[in-house]
């Protein structure tokens, strides 16, 4: 299965004529006028529909495959969220429409803020960040603004564990901070001694995710919080992994000052093949004055957006309007459908699935990276041994899994575990599917022992076989050029 580029299907003069106005001529001064039309595809409506429908079929997705991509929380995206978020009134609402014709939407946003406060244990929530990384940005920017507002101008160091997601250090840099990396212990916990040594008068804060991306819960979190706070720093919670603890423990209660949430993970909005997401931030008392705007407030005469006049110390705006509203609506709808009991179940069954899958894989002879620990909602298998003994690596396992109809786990992240597969089944997968995954892993292990080239050459049954990434980066081909 493969599909030619749409450009090769284009023919001059063809069009989907029902899609644009009958007649219209633009008036543009000669020197500003476009002379040659942009060479966009010229195809019929059927050709476009067929092309993109066929392209879609080349993808794995939650709706078609088990997708245990660690740290990405690929769980079921309820179709109802999409349907109700796309009601014509919501789709048609202009972001700058007056409050009088926006109360329905604003009420949803306000209630979403309130629910997110409740589940995180924070004091305020801003929905504006457009993805996790922007939520992180908002968080670190608030930490900086906090220190600055106190005249504490030297604090520009952000401590980040080596297991952290790449966005954490990248964000710190973007905020003009210096990144101090600290190691993890072999049991997966933070090296608290190293932390102590890193803390000091320049400490702005620490970015943690707990459970960490190693798939284990940071047990000494209260001690960490105390240490950082005593050093004058603040604690940032990377809430991409909130799925692990939803309803079980709240970042606010653990001592965090600020958190971002990946609504496109924990709150099950779709990832759309790359996005959109939403990285709503929650803050404790200290950071309330600095929240990114706009934020919805409920007032006597209805709901309205707070802006720079209401939040004068705000770190400012992060998007042209108010973030990914449609994603927020989906998260809101999802939360309403979960409700209180459902919210609690998320972490329970996510942990059950992860621990079960871990137990079965271990029983099948695979090595856990942290065998002494409970898995959180995800866990790490390392195939270091197989790499050494059989010459097949994590990538080979990953690619071969595709042939078995399973999306691969996250590979080579976190960077500190060699040949790792970070596996996150999520709570919406059935035991049968986990069992199927285990069987596939066992079959692949057997192949690795008996015919390792099966793995090396994998995938064999997908639209393409393994791609040459080196060539992609060296002989850059980033846009199609017609042969002449």
């Amino acid at each position: 299965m493969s599909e030619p580029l749409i450009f090769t299907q284009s023919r001059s003069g063809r069009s989907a004529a029902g899609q644009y106005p009958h007649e219209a001529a633009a008036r543009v001064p000669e020197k500003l006028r476009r002379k040659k039309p942009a060479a966009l595809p010229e195809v019929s409506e059927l050709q476009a529909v067929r092309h993109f429908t066929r392209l879609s079929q080349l993808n794995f997705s939650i709706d078609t495959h088990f997708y245990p991509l660690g740290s990405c929380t690929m769980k079921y995206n309820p179709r109802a969220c999409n349907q109700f978020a796309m009601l014509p009134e919501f789709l048609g609402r202009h972001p700058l429409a007056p409050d009088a014709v926006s109360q329905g939407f604003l009420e949803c946003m306000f209630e979403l803020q309130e629910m997110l406060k409740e589940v995180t244990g924070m004091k305020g929530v801003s929905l504006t960040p457009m993805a996790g990384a922007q939520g992180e940005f908002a968080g670190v920017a608030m930490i900086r603004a906090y220190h600055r507002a106190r005249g504490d101008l030297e604090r520009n160091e952000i401590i980040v564990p080596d297991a952290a997601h790449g966005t954490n250090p990248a964000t710190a840099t973007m905020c003009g901070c210096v990144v101090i990396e600290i190691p993890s212990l072999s049991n997966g916990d933070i090296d608290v001694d190293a932390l102590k040594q890193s803390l000091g008068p320049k400490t702005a804060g620490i970015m943690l995710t707990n459970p960490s991306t190693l798939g284990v819960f940071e047990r000494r979190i209260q001690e960490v919080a105390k240490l950082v706070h005593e050093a004058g720093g603040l604690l940032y919670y990377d809430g991409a992994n909130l799925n692990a603890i939803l309803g079980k423990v709240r970042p606010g209660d653990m001592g965090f000052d600020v958190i971002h949430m990946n609504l496109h993970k924990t709150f099950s909005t779709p990832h759309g093949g790359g996005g959109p997401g939403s990285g709503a931030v929650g803050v404790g008392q200290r950071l309330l004055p600095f929240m990114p705007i706009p934020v919805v407030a409920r007032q006597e005469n209805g709901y309205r957006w707070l802006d720079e006049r209401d939040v004068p110390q705000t770190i400012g705006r992060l998007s042209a309007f108010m973030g990914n509203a449609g994603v927020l609506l989906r998260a809101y709808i999802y939360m309403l459908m979960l409700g209180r009991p459902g919210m609690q179940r998320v972490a329970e069954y996510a942990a059950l699935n992860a621990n079960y899958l871990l137990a079965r894989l271990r029983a099948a002879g695979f090595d856990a990276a942290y065998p002494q620990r409970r898995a959180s909602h995800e866990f790490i298998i390392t195939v270091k041994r197989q790499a050494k003994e059989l010459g097949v690596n994590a990538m080979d396992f990953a690619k071969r899994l595709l042939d078995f109809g399973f999306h691969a786990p996250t590979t080579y992240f976190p960077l500190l575990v060699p040949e790792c597969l970070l596996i996150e089944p999520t709570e919406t997968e059935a035991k049968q599917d986990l069992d199927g995954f285990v069987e596939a892993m066992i079959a692949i292990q057997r192949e690795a022992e008996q015919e390792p080239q099966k793995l090396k050459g994998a995938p064999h049954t997908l639209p393409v076989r393994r791609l040459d990434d080196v060539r992609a980066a060296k002989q850059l081909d980033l846009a199609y050029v017609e042969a002449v």
Partner: protein
Amino acid sequence: MPFIPHTEDDVREMLAAIGAPNIDALFEEIPAALRTRELTGIPDALTEMEVGRLMRSRARKDGTPINFIGAGAYEHHIPAAVWAIVTRGEFYSAYTPYQAEASQGTLQLLYEYQTMMTRLTGMQVSNASLYDGASALAEAALMSVRAHRRSKSARILVPASVNPTYLSVARAITEGQNVKFDVLPYASSSGTFDPGSLSAFEGQDITAVVIQHPNFFGLFEDVDAITDWAHANGSLVIAVVNPLSLAILKPPGEWGSKGVDIVVGEGQPLGVPLSSGGPYFGFMTARMEHVRQMPGRIIGRTVDLDGKPGFTLTLQAREQHIRRSKATSNICTNQGLLVTAATIYMSLLGSKGLERVAAASQTQTDKLIAALTRIDGVKLAFTGPRFHEAVLRLNKPVKPVLAALAERGIVGGYDLSNHYPELGHALLVCATEMRTDGEIEEYANALREVTSDG
């Protein structure tokens, strides 16, 4: 248990395999003192039917007023096929295409998107999206600082005719890296930026100059002169454009004698519904020489083990998951699904379709302005050539006028008085191809009533 597939038997067998007495035991590593007791603030679960009822009632509250605002988000016709395909599970529920072989649909589509955007903007490379137009400008500013090796100032000139929110966002995002934006006034007579006023900066270390065209007032800027001045002064040029306008306007790649360096903008007009401001997508294209400074995902075409063409994420060494604190940006999740919409939209419309949409929008805006300025006390602020927005001056404060119009089911425009107090009671209005002559008349009648009251 909505969304949870586990039967009691399943749970029992799974716990046995784990060797845990109950599910709670799986959380034993969490200090007991921290364990959440109850989420009292969360309401009981609603069924899908109940949620549907609730959401429909919320939606009904907001209704479907007739919309005459643009100001960065535009209501265009979106072919039914676009979202029917975008919401197919294979696009909707896939992750970022890390496993290229299992994501060729998304990857090929993104490669096609990149191609379309380079063609539309007249540039050589495109990334696979940023969050939105405003944050794209911030990223462009940071990119220009990285790309301009000789400039040390991180100083960027921005005419005040650039979308003021874009400027706020760019400031908020780049502030930690000490980028400085110098805002230059627009000419009060024309509403456009006078390139002549750049002479004051001649010879200074300016990293980049930003040009928004059409500008925030909907007017055409003298893009050639500004571009050429910037290049002559050793500065880079960042263009902020409405992608739809490029169907009729000279692409930034052809501005001045050598074209701009970076192009960014809001992709929303290309098939994305207004939906309260998002999700939209920011686009960015640039000269090939700057590709390694680009933020965001980039897709490349390569070959597989059998030599068959295929697509993959490339130049990942720029990105946070590889380069961590030294990445070009912290962006990870982007706005892929909206790019999917835009790619299908552009394929369905073609450049001829886009041209017609742009032209019809311009025409309807002309009619709107003609109709509204016939009203006593309503004047056109700037008369130069424009795309599909215009600034009107009213004889009374804008906010109550807009409120009164809203009561009549009309969203009448964007109040400029916060950002541009110097313009007086100024209102930014917009009509696209979606606005009929009848709706324009309805607006004119309503505005006449509202402005003549009292």
